[in-house]
């Protein structure tokens, strides 16, 4: 392979002859067209540019790219181009590149927005999405009314499917997470309470924490990642695929058909998962307690039973229902608001998970304060 070279021959005032030689390939080193272009911009610029390609070897886009830069430079400076000295293929490609003029206004101009402008836009879009969420919630409430009166259109088979996915299929992960959380609580409890010689109260700590708060929160977060994300992705894909439009045109309410059964699936399954999660957590705590404290199984169980009151249980179950609704609403709302591309489905899934977790933690704090004030 011979090295590409570009030679400028000023043949008098009128014409600039460019001699191309060697192999002009994209992945090899090529001469820079800047010299030619700056020559075209000078006061003593030539009237036209001609080419000599007798010594040109192989060529590809590497050559055409350089030629286009030269032709553009020539156009800008009002210099004529005589392409007849180029290989026929290259002549045609250059002609083709300039055949359609750039459409006016087609090129994107990137403008830096001022801080205020950006802030204003963000506030407006925040308000818009807030309004969207309110509309969605309103529609959902109406739809739940129809659902409970048996007037909503949905498929029983879909509903049972959602229940199975949100319930039975979540058992393994809920078992693992809650079991480990119970163990962690027990470790912390044993280490601290032993200092006061009150190690047995580890049983109280684990049981009350799991039943009142942790089981519901952990199940909520697991469901946000598992089910909320799945809801957003399922509905978002249906949206992209025009399946939601197809429902609407047949006169079926997409909220009735897609959203409400999913919400109810989580409302039904979350309390069950929470009870199960509490049990798993207490089981984990018991294992740690028995191995690190000098107590018997009977003593530990006795202590646990004394510590958990019905109030705590109902408080935890109520929270789990709230979290279930929030997770389902976040998932379905993001799915229904999904844009029209594969990228949008990914974004709405991410948003659904983030929104679900944030809503859970915020509502957990609010509910805890309310419970304390009500003395539950």
């Amino acid at each position: 392979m011979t090295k590409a070279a570009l030679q400028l021959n000023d043949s008098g005032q009128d014409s600039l002859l460019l001699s191309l030689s060697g192999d002009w390939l994209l992945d090899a080193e090529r001469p820079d067209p800047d010299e030619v272009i700056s020559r075209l911009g000078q006061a003593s610029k030539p009237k036209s540019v001609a080419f000599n390609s007798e010594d040109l070897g192989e060529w590809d886009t590497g050559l055409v790219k350089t030629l286009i830069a030269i032709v553009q430079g020539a156009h800008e400076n009002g210099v004529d181009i005589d392409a007849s000295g180029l290989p026929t293929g290259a002549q045609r490609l250059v002609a083709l590149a300039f055949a359609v003029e750039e459409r006016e206004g087609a090129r994107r101009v990137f403008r830096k927005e001022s801080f205020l402008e950006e802030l204003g836009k963000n506030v407006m879009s925040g308000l818009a999405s807030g309004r969207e969420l309110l509309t969605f919630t309103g529609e959902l409430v109406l739809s739940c009314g129809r659902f409970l009166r048996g007037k909503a259109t949905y498929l029983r088979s879909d509903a049972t499917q959602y229940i199975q996915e949100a319930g039975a299929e979540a058992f393994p992960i809920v078992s693992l997470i809650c079991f480990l959380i119970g163990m962690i609580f027990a470790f912390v409890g044993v280490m601290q309470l032993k200092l006061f010689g009150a190690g047995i109260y580890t049983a109280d700590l684990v049981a009350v924490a799991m039943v009142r708060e942790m089981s519901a929160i952990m199940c909520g977060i697991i469901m946000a990642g598992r089910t909320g994300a799945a809801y957003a992705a399922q509905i978002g894909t249906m949206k992209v695929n025009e399946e939601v439009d197809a429902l609407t045109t047949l006169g079926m309410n997409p909220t009735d058909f897609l959203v409400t059964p999913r919400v109810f699936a989580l409302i039904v399954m979350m309390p069950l998962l929470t009870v199960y999660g509490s049990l798993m957590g207490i089981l984990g705590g018991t294992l740690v307690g028995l191995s690190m404290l000098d107590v018997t199984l009977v003593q530990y169980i006795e202590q646990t039973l004394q510590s958990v009151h019905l109030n705590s249980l109902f408080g935890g179950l109520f929270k789990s229902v709230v979290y279930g609704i929030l997770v389902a609403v976040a998932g379905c709302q993001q799915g229904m608001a999904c844009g029209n591309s594969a990228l949008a489905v990914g974004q709405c899934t991410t948003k659904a998970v983030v929104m679900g977790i944030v809503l859970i933690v915020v509502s957990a704090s609010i509910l805890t304060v309310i419970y304390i004030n009500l003395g539950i």
Partner: protein
Amino acid sequence: MENAQAHITAEDLTMAYGDFLIQKDLNFTINRGDVFIIMGGSGCGKSTLLKIMIGLKTPATGDVFYDKEPFWASSDAERELTKRKFGTLFQSGALWSSMTLAENIGLALEQYTGLGAAEIREVAAYKLMLVGLAGFEDYYPNEISGGMKKRAGLARAMALDPDILFFDEPSAGLDPISAKLLDDLILELRESLGTTVVIVTHELASIFAIGNNSVFLDPVTKTQLATGNPVEMRDHHPNFDVRNFLQRGEAA
């Protein structure tokens, strides 16, 4: 067509997304039994017009009249009733992926008729036979090819024996033979059922093969340039852009 009867009329229709105008001042009439083509270059608002006609998007101004009854100016309940006479085939088929073909077709029947499960299945099987998919009742949409999905989508669109069938780019993504077969099928159904057909397409072969009435939307002036029979428009329309489009850029 003799003793033609106006079935669908668009009056001063303007469509916009927010402040962004798509098309304005659309006026056209579709007669009963017409195969009406909505055509125009890419991005001129063909699909948006279809969405307005089937009730998925609200027009900025103007209205569509079905049998002289206004569509958007009527109450939600009335609009639902009008919509029940429509059948729509979406661009990708838009079959519900969690349901079999028979369930896809049966859903609307279950909703709006008093038929029992066995009868619904029979109707679904019959509709699938009409589109050449006999025996595919228990297949899921992801198990069949793109052309078959369109046919199944057509079977679903015909589930409630609609007065009007809407098609969004029926031949997009189909090989020439499948596209031709789908065209034939559309014509055949129109002949035998007397349905009015509205098609969004820019497939010239289809336009001339099946269309007898049309509207041409222009993305530059943002309004309709022509309405009428596509063959006459190709040969005689005074506007160069219209002829040029219909003659594949070879108009003199």
